[in-house]
């Protein structure tokens, strides 16, 4: 079971090129993510959602505010909070198996978990590619391997930075199903950044909507649908319209009689 995450008054200012002060990327973000929950952070580009994720991971520091993870303050990156990036981050000089092995060894759990490698490989449907190098895999396979490498070190918290963004639509939908399956099996806390409305609704229990410049939390939406979800259901469409409206993409139609 994953850990809970508390985001308390987090702001991030990037230093400008001159003395005048920098760009405010995040402005006083507050949110609580429950243990084992799947939450998406949704917003247009420039709303600072990736920055927020890096701060939760501990890879970047907040200008002010605090992140709590399982009750403890986040200061440094830690294997218990793993980040999955948009492009695959498999090390190209290691085979798929060696990538997972390297991750386990780095986190000093190789001895206890070496037998799980085969399981992970089959979970990602990559058994026959275990000894291939990343460049020999397709984009979808690479991202699956990347994901599984992250999950193999048994993160309490998995942070996903548009993990499926670089894939074509069909591969993407397949991997969304995989992601739901993995999450339901492992019950880790998952926080995913995305700009795909459908993806957010399809995967998450709650959606944090963010608005850009400066990045702020606009609204937090519950998606009370059972898994697996149906992309074509009426409820699904309802949430879709609601979110698009809030993001100001679905304008209320005004009848126009002028010629």
């Amino acid at each position, binding site marked *: 079971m994953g850990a809970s995450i508390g985001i308390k008054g987090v702001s991030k200012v990037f230093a400008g090129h001159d003395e005048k002060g920098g760009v405010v990327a995040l402005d006083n973000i507050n949110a609580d993510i429950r243990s084992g929950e799947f939450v998406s952070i949704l917003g247009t580009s420039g709303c600072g959602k990736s920055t927020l994720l890096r701060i939760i*991971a501990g*890879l970047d520091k907040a200008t002010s505010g605090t992140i709590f993870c399982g009750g403890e303050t986040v200061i440094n990156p*830690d294997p218990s909070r793993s*980040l999955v*990036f948009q492009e695959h981050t498999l090390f190209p000089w290691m085979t798929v198996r060696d990538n997972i092995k390297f991750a386990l060894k780095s*986190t000093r759990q190789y001895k206890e978990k070496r037998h799980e490698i085969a399981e992970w490989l089959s979970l990602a449907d990559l058994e026959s590619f275990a000894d291939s*190098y990343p460049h020999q895999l397709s984009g979808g396979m690479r991202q699956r391997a990347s994901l599984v490498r992250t999950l193999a070190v048994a993160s309490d918290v998995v942070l996903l930075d548009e993990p499926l963004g670089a894939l074509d639509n069909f591969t993407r939908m397949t991997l969304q199903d995989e992601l739901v399956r993995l999450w339901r099996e492992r019950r880790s806390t998952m926080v995913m950044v995305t700009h795909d409305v459908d993806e957010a609704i399809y995967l998450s229990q709650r959606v944090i909507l963010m608005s850009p410049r400066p990045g702020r939390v606009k609204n937090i939406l519950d998606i009370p649908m059972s898994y697996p979800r149906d992309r074509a259901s009426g409820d699904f469409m309802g949430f879709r319209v609601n979110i698009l409206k809030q993001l100001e993409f679905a304008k209320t139609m005004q009848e126009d009689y002028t010629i």
Partner: protein
Amino acid sequence: MLFAAFLLTNLLPNRIKGDSFAFYAIVLAAVLEAIAVVSRKRAVVKDLVFFMFALLIVWTLATSKLNLLREFLFAPPGKVLRQFILDYRDLVRHIFSSLGLILNGYVIALAAAVPLGLFIGYSMRAGRTATLISKFLSSIPPIVYIPYGIALLPTFRSVSVMVIFLATFWPVLSGTIAGVMYTERKYLDVARNLGCGKFRTLFRIVLPSALPQIFTGCNQGLSVSFILLTSAEMIGARNGMGYYVNYFSDLGDYTRTMVGVFLIGIVISVVYAAVGRLQKFILRWQA
């Protein structure tokens, strides 16, 4: 086809004095033909053999048959080949002498440049300055250090090793620094996320990702090393392939001079091919 053409050219009457030892050339041609027949599928081999036949025909015609070139300077192919076989032992000794020097200077240079480059590149600030410095120093052709080498070092061998060292050290150093500095951030982020220590990150992440650039430096060093070594051997050595060429051209034995020239070409190509194979194997993870 060309094999037959070559045999026919050999039936033409000789127009030079003395034996042209056509027998040896014909044996070589037969071997080439056999190779071409055996490797039926590989187009590259076939084309190469084709080229060599063409060369042999032109060479034979220009020397023993039509005597277009000066007989004193250009020996017919058979004669060169015969000399190759007669001098076999000597040649092997010269090859080992040259390769020994290269290996010596090269290995010392790699052993010094790669760790130093890793260290410098890993600390960003030193890396920028060092890149500029090593760019400047690698732009100086190491042959100009020879006077200092001769003045400071006791033997020809040590001077050669020094020159080869310098020819290899700077390109490998700057290649390593660049490779380390341009390690992609995402790999470093993952390493950090996994809690990798400094050494683990350096040897498992930074070093492999820098390898392609390190190899580029190695190759540059190798080709400059060969140029420098053969030139140096022609000037001041008692051994080596460059010495062989120079010694016999001084004696007016141009058959052996040609042997030396071909030998250098063959040896360097073989070394390059071997090094290339090795690198390709080490970098097999690259697309």
